[in-house]
């Protein structure tokens, strides 16, 4: 099994234009087991995106290091797929070309052509292969963007509030779709969310982060069988527990969680 992430003493500071420094992450330590599904949850602006981008190699840690299967992360790579909060589909490519982009860039498209079609089906976009992103709804774009990140079989999929822009109904449907893909491919999933229900519904582990500068406040194992029921007692107990920690961790922040 591959896809083990080790985050060791990661610190990240940003320099503002006026020269002042912002500490976004301060001594973050975390081990993610291969093939597990973890969620990052924490007050807004605490550094969740920063951590995810550091794992992706889009921004490098100022101190400390991140390892994927023992190799230090120094630059972005396709083995760490990333689904952005906005779908960021390439507007000038149709849906099929978007999904095939990574395979073409790596020169393996000829070999893996069928994968593109399979993922288009998997995310339910058959018949829209030739459409351009502006012709699709937000949910469809988000699905295309997931397919694009998944088609290269990354060892890790990093998801930054992937469903944040969707309505409640589409959101629940997409949660199940993501779980299905995960079940089939067993890559490691790291998802940022601000929706506690979503985190409990989907994750093996929930990492609760404190307000800035972010540290890991608590790691909670979600010991529920799948598929999970949102109404069951144990589910609600986890939810309450997390909300309490968040309330404590983010007491300076305004509450902005979906309850």
């Amino acid at each position, binding site marked *: 099994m591959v896809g083990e992430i080790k985050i060791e003493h990661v610190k990240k500071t940003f320099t503002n234009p006026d020269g002042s420094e912002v500490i976004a992450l301060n001594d973050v330590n975390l081990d993610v087991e291969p093939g597990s599904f973890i969620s990052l949850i924490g007050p807004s602006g605490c550094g969740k995106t920063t951590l995810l981008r550091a794992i*992706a190699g*889009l921004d490098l840690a100022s101190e400390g290091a991140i390892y994927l299967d023992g190799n230090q992360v120094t*630059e*972005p*790579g*396709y083995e*760490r*797929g*990333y689904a*952005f909060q*906005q779908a*960021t589909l*390439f*507007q*000038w*490519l*149709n849906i099929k070309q978007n999904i095939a*982009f*990574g395979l*073409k*860039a*790596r020169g393996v498209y000829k070999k893996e052509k069928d994968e593109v079609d399979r993922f288009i089906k998997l995310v339910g976009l058959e018949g*829209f292969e*030739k*459409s*351009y992103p*502006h*012709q699709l709804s937000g949910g469809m774009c988000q699905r295309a963007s997931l397919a*694009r*990140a998944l088609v*290269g079989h990354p060892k890790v999929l990093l998801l930054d509030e992937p469903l944040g822009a969707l309505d409640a109904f589409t959101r629940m449907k997409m949660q199940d779709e993501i779980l299905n893909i995960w079940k089939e491919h067993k890559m490691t999933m790291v998802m940022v969310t601000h929706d506690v229900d979503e985190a409990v519904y989907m994750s093996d582990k929930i990492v609760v982060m404190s307000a800035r500068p972010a540290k890991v406040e608590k790691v909670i194992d979600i010991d529920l069988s799948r598929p999970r029921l949102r109404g069951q007692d144990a589910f609600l107990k986890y939810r309450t527990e997390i909300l309490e920690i968040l309330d404590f961790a983010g007491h300076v922040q305004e509450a902005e969680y979906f309850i």
Partner: protein
Amino acid sequence: MKKHIIRLLPILSIGLAVLLHNEIPNSTLQPQAEKPYFTYFLEILLGLYIICVVVSYVSKAFGEWLITKAPLWAGAVLLLNIINLAFSKYAMLPVLYFPCLDRVFEVFVTDYKLLWECIRSSFRLLAWGWLWGAGLGFITGVGIGFNKKLSYWVSPFTKVIGPIPPTSWSPLVLSLFTTSYHAAIFMIALAVWFPITLMTSSGIQNVQNSYFEAASTLGAKKYYRIVHVGIPAAMPHIFLGVFYATCSSFVTLVTAEMLGCKSGIGWYLNWVKSMMLYSKVYAGLIVLAGICTFVLTLIFKMKDKILVWQKGMIKW
């Protein structure tokens, strides 16, 4: 029923123009043409339009399109008709500068060979200048857009050189190049180079960084990101540059031809003006309008093809 009437409008308009032109004699102040060339022109228009009408009964899509255009064409002919009345029939304006339309259209028959020579020569100049300018402009723009060092050293240079009207180089350029033909190509290339460089580099610099980030997490290396993300994302900007560049290339073409060349439509205009042959000036202007419209139409067709993803009307 209403559609049939709309379809008939251009025919009525042409008919009216022919009728008035035949019935009212030209003003005696106007020098006359050998033959009623304006009538010939209208008859050719009528013939072409009747072909269009016939085709519209075969192809439904063409018919729909024709109906949207018919009132405009009828209006255009009506305008010609009014001009004809004002210039040729009643000589309301000085006849030296406003000749009768028969004589304007006569030029296309008498100067046919020379005009054709001029069109070819102008096209050759325009094509070479445009291609050199666009090619170099694109390369410079991409270089400046992606490379910080190049941007630091080259963009101030382009910002100083670029805004100078290209034809103002002519005193220098005409003595540096052995032929005025090459000098003209150089000036047209300069006119095209600047807008394309500017819009390409600014287009690339304004591409959302998230596109590049998405591409890099998908495994695209730097060169691939430049070609497959930066340039296509900047295409709408680049086309704006191409449009400005093409318009400025027309200005430069005509001015360059007026300054030094011994052929081309600019030279023709200058020459007939100096001989006070205003009917030929109008004919030259009509040809020039034709060239510019043709080139711009070509450019917009190209844009529609390349930027299909921008339009909201693609069918699948």
